[in-house]
């Protein structure tokens, strides 16, 4: 039954993709439906009417788009149901599908870990399918055909779900690559922009290399076992060296997808250019699938983990977290910023996973379970709020036709609903208490603070430093999202588009983010619900659950023991409401002190213009000075002079370009190397036939010489 609903989720997403293909087949659809109605319902007039009305030339596109997204939404609902059912039932279901290689049918396994990620994907897909119809409405059919968008969205979701179901290396890779390829087409969807083309190229290239690394990782395991099923791979007995090689390969492969520094570069290129609901899925969910892969590979298939791996994860995670947020801070493009912020969050998750590994390898399974919990919880949270923010960015782009933060401002007035939803997203991602982001970060700190149980002095000093880096990350994230929210929604509009922006008409476009925002708040207040679910996962995977001390009752969150640390979001919420309520009541009781509106104080110079506001780059200027080494900063100020002797400044031009270090340090040398090698290789083909004959001749002689 559970498996059936999981299959339903996959099939429905496929079906939504296929239905989208019918975009140009109105006549066919019409005749098919008329035929079936005549056969099955004996030509029921009402049915016919309904069909005819919806399949009319005029209504058809809208109807079809809605139908496609309804199917996708249903797929999400089924995914949530399946995920919850397996998590609560604590079972493992296996199955086989007769596809794949002749001696290796597709093995399917649905367990707690897959179920949890099913749950995440399901929620995200539900939100996206609420949001989708309104968003895609603005695409022109002849330039951006819905057929390809819908098809690849369906395939993309199906691919992600299949990855979670896979129980053999072959099916896993097929599903994995299906996910990559489908999302590649989605990135390239608006391919008339060169940014889309180069981003999709980079994306697919890195996806390919990552996938190859993963295959080789599986290959290492398969070399020491008989077969490609995960069951067989689990049995493989590896030496420490080979296990570490497998780990490094998996780390590279999954890390590329997840966006770990320095293999993150595709992410800030690809996510911004995709349609927003797709960026939401890519950033919010696809990265989680990569995380799933890493967890499955390291904790499940490799079996025994080594603490050195944990250190690698910890260091890479820290670098990604700090790098991600610092780069995010400097981006003027909203979606690019959000993409970099995903790098940061993935970094945090990797850090905590690394901690979990370290504890696991040092014989503290309980603490490992705690770290695991923090990691998965953060993954869940990130899926919620990043989805929310990307959908919000989509609304903003939809209404203002602008993604440059410096061109916005004051949207809080025109778009009150969106602004509230976006604020919730910003607060969650800045890990403020009462929201879900805080809970996972709190758990991460708690994990890090258990370092005292370790014997290794290096680890004992390394982990607190990582924790402090985590604190810095969180603080920088808060600064970054203050900037985002402040520049976009607050202040005065910096462009006419932003000034004219109004709330979206489509209710669905608000409903999707609202669902996510609600969940952000709900899980922030009642984290126990999700923790309970994750406990089942870690119980299955690590054989250890977190000792959630229930002595204090369900209101409290006490991961290790009540004496060590506890946090009760509901009580905090009540306290906050009381405090705010009291002072609100007290201060507003006097009718004489009703608020008065007046002009903003302009220091007496007269006339505040929007251009006097702090801009995006101005806001981050202190950071730019302090962390100057992190970026490649190209700052140019030029002055137009006029007047006698050219001494009066007429205008000042300021240009700021900020670049990621990884481009000139890693990627450009590689690209140049390949090009120049290709040039060298090209020289063997001279065009002269005598040279070619010489090659054959020489080859022959050399081979003859070699064998005799």
């Amino acid at each position, binding site marked *: 039954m559970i498996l059936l609903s999981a299959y339903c989720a996959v099939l429905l997403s496929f079906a939504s993709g296929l239905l989208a293909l019918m975009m140009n087949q109105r006549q066919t659809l019409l005749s098919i439906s008329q035929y079936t109605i005549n056969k099955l319902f004996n030509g029921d007039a009402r049915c016919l009417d309904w069909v005819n009305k919806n399949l009319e030339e005029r209504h058809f596109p809208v109807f079809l788009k809605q139908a496609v997204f309804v199917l996708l939404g249903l797929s999400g609902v089924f995914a949530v149901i399946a995920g919850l059912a397996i998590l609560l039932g604590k079972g493992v279901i296996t199955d086989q599908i007769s596809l794949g290689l002749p001696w290796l049918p597709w093995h399917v396994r649905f367990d707690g870990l897959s179920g949890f990620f099913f749950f995440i994907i399901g929620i995200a897909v539900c939100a996206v399918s609420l949001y989708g119809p309104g968003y895609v409405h603005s695409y022109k059919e002849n330039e951006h055909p819905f057929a390809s968008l819908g098809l690849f969205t369906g395939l993309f979701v199906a691919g992600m779900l299949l990855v979670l179901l896979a129980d053999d290396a072959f099916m896993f890779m097929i599903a994995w690559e299906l996910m990559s390829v489908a999302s590649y087409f989605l990135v390239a969807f608006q391919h008339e922009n060169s940014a889309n083309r180069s981003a999709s190229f980079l994306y697919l290239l890195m996806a390919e290399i990552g996938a190859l690394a993963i295959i080789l990782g599986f290959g290492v395991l398969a070399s020491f076992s008989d077969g490609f099923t995960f069951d067989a791979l689990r049995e493989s007995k590896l030496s420490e060296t080979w296990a570490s090689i497998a780990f490094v390969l998996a780390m590279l492969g999954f890390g590329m997808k997840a966006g770990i520094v320095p293999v993150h570069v595709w992410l800030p290129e690809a996510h911004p250019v995709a349609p927003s609901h797709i960026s939401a899925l890519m950033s919010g969910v696809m990265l989680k699938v990569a995380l799933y892969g890493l967890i499955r590979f390291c904790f499940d298939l490799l079996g025994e983990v080594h603490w050195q791996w944990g250190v690698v994860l910890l260091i890479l995670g820290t670098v990604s977290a700090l790098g991600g947020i610092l780069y995010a801070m400097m981006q003027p493009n909203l979606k690019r910023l959000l993409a970099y912020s995903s790098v940061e969050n993935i970094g945090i998750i990797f850090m905590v996973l690394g901690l979990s590994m370290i504890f696991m390898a040092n014989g503290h399974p309980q603490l490992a379970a705690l770290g695991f919990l923090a990691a998965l919880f953060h993954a869940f949270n990130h899926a919620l709020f990043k989805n929310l923010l990307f959908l919000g960015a989509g609304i903003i782009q939809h209404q203002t036709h602008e993604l440059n933060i410096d061109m916005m401002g004051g949207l*809080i007035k025109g778009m009150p609903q969106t602004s509230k939803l976006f604020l919730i997203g910003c607060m969650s991602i*800045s890990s*403020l*208490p009462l929201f879900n982001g*805080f809970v996972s970060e*709190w758990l991460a*700190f708690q994990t890090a*603070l258990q*370092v005292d149980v370790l014997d290794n*002095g290096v680890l*004992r*000093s390394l982990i*607190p*430093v990582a*924790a*402090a*880096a985590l*604190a*810095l990350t*969180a*603080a920088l994230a*808060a*600064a970054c999202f*203050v900037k985002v*929210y*402040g*520049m976009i929604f*607050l*202040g005065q509009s910096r462009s006419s588009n932003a000034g004219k922006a109004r709330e979206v008409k489509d209710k669905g476009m608000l409903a999707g983010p609202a669902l996510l925002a609600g969940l952000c708040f709900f899980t922030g207040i009642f984290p126990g619900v999700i923790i309970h679910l994750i406990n089942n996962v870690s119980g299955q995977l690590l054989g250890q659950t977190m000792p959630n001390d229930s002595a*204090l009752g369900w209101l*409290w969150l006490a991961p290790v023991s*009540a*004496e*060590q*640390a*506890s946090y009760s979001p509901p009580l905090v919420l009540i*306290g*906050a409401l009381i*405090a*705010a309520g009291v002072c*609100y009541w007290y*201060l*507003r009781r006097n009718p004489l*002190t*009703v*608020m008065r*509106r*007046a*002009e*903003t*104080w*302009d220091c007496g110079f007269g006339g*505040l213009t929007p251009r006097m*506001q*702090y801009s995006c780059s*101005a*806001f981050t200027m*202190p950071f730019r*000075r*302090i962390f100057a080494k992190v970026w490649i900063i190209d700052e140019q100020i030029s002055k137009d002079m006029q007047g006698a002797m050219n001494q009066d400044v007429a205008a000042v031009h300021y240009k700021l370009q900020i670049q990621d270090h990884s481009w000139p340090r890693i990627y450009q040398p590689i690209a140049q190397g390949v090009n120049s090698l290709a040039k060298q290789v090209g020289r063997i083909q001279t065009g002269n036939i005598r040279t070619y004959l010489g090659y054959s001749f020489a080859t022959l002689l050399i081979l003859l010489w070699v064998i005799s």
Partner: protein
Amino acid sequence: MNWLIAIFQTMLFVLLSPLLAGWIKWCKCYLQNRKAPSLLQPYRDLLKLTHKQPVVSEQASWLFVTAPYIIFSATVLAASVVPLIAVNLPTSASADVIVMVGFFAFARFFLALAGLDIGTAFGGMGSSREMTISSLAEPAMLMAIFTLTMTASTTNLSGAIAHVLNDGMVLRPSFVFALFALILVAIAETGRVPVDNPATHLELTMIHEAMILEYSGRHLALIEWASQLKLMLYGVLITNIFFPWGIAEDFTGKALGYGLLAIMGKLALLAVFLAVAETLVAKMRLFRVQEYLSFAYLLGLLGMLSHIILEASR
């Protein structure tokens, strides 16, 4: 009963904080050969502000108006976590020290947003600087706090203080480092000299004041009160963590009374130190703050390392 004491303690916190501000001002005036205002002057100011009609810019959105309430209640919540006169109160179980830092972040988040809401250059400048300083201060503060929590093996403030009390007088090198780190952070976070000067409105140096420039009336009162509360909070944190003696461990009237007296005494002393320091030290340039804060971070790190290497080595 315990809950009542907890609420009482929080009220006490809120009520006493203007007094601390007044006392610091009094000391400073005395040190600078000026005529000091009354100790109760901050109360009068607050009362006056609540009776005034608030004037709000036309540009302001709902966020600007709501922010003071949010800021104030977040700070109050932070105060409820910190043991003032007694340990082992139930409120401290609902949130630990990390959550407390979270509350500060919450308040700061809205303060910075409010600064940006009007769309003036000052607001943006203040927000930008505030976020910069706080994001540098936060890791330093957590580093110092982690030293403490690792010694006490709890992040529960009340528990940690009780742990220090039970240990008695132990000279821990890590605590020395942590204390200095925390003091440096506290100065930065509460906007005192040499990082910020609460008494100036010179545009180039303003941080906190720049953000709240547009506030008036009850909104300003709330924000002022919140920052006084924050100052006191840090004071209590420093004194009660490192010098917890005197704090009530049971909830009898006598113990509580002694606790109150002890903390008032300790705070008064601390305030004198602060006033002396503020009088002696000049304000720094903004871009030297990161050196100051990284020094604080370094101290925190040293504290942590000395805890790991010297005190808990195996």
